[in-house]
């Protein structure tokens, strides 16, 4: 059964619930059950937090290295360069998020306009 196999109006919504909502929220619910058993300040919580942080870091790397949409056409060197420069600016100039974001964006946009 695919998106187009039933032509009733409700089918796409059922498809979204079964193929989108269910396989997403099920992980959140399992996360609640696991998180409910973890005591604060325990080593288990340190590990769970580390796994979650490394995972979010993986999402960041994915968005920079393998982006979708219009960003996918830019050069990977430009994206890595802009991200590294932005993060370095963030660390060196008083850890302000906005500084890191702006420096990275200026480099990315300049690079894109120069067709780098």
């Amino acid at each position, binding site marked *: *059964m695919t998106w187009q196999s039933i032509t009733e109006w409700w089918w796409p919504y059922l*498809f979204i619930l079964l*193929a989108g909502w269910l396989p997403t929220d099920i992980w959140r*619910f399992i996360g609640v059950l696991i998180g409910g058993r973890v005591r604060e300040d325990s080593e288990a919580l340190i590990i769970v937090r*580390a796994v979650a942080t490394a995972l979010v870091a993986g999402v960041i790397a994915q968005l920079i290295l393998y982006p979708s949409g219009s960003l996918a056409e830019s050069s990977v060197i430009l994206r890595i360069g802009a991200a590294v420069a932005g993060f370095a600016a963030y660390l060196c100039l008083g*850890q302000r998020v906005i500084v890191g974001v702006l420096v990275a964006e200026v480099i990315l946009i300049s690079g894109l306009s120069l067709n780098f």
Partner: protein
Amino acid sequence: MLANALPFIAGIMADSEFPFPQSDAEDLRTKFSWFLSGASMIFSIPALILMTAHVGFAGFASENGVSLLQATFMVATIWALPANIVLIGAISGGYSLFGAAIAVALSSIRLMPMVAAFVPEMRGPKTRKFTLLFLSHFIAVTAWVIGMERLQHVPRNMRTTYFAGLGVTLTSTNTLVVAIVYYLSTDFPPIVFAALFFLTPMYFLASLWGSARDRSIHVAMISGLLLFPLIHYLAPAYDLLLTGLAGGLVTLAYVRWQQARQHP
């Protein structure tokens, strides 16, 4: 800004008459102001960045033949941008229902450790499991990063209320953004979209680093960033999950090493 707003809101509410005993009215008032405090995060930089990402999503949905109502339904029920993009990819690729569900499940596994780490942060002494299950729907990367940073400054018994304000507002506003942008079929030159899409990773990079309370989080973050390309090359289907596990192991080794150094 908030510190000024709270007494103001409390002042307005003090004038209205509550049909409750004094302590209940007081409690409700405190709760309401914490809810508003969470909701006001919609005006923060990360929330604005998330909205720009949803502007991009509206365009992506309409390019792939997903209708306005279907796209807004996706945002509200799934509430995880990568899962939404994977689902639309599966739809336009002609996947079966089961195949699409597997693809989405793989992209959403990351929510499990994220929620598991978030719950001990958010729950109060008397929080019911049902409340946590309901609120967990609103946990995605942006709300997670904001919550991990802010919840520690919120009194324990007000944290679920604060997150309800933050989460519900973030989800409903972005659902609305997708509907409006889709309806207006706003079109921007590709360079604008490219610049918008780059905001998200840069914001996460800086704020994740800044919200860390100890070194172990920095170790986890750096190992995740560096391990991801290698793991993506070796096992593209499970890259995020394996990155999380490998980064967790590296961090555990670091924590053990630190303990051994401090207590020889």
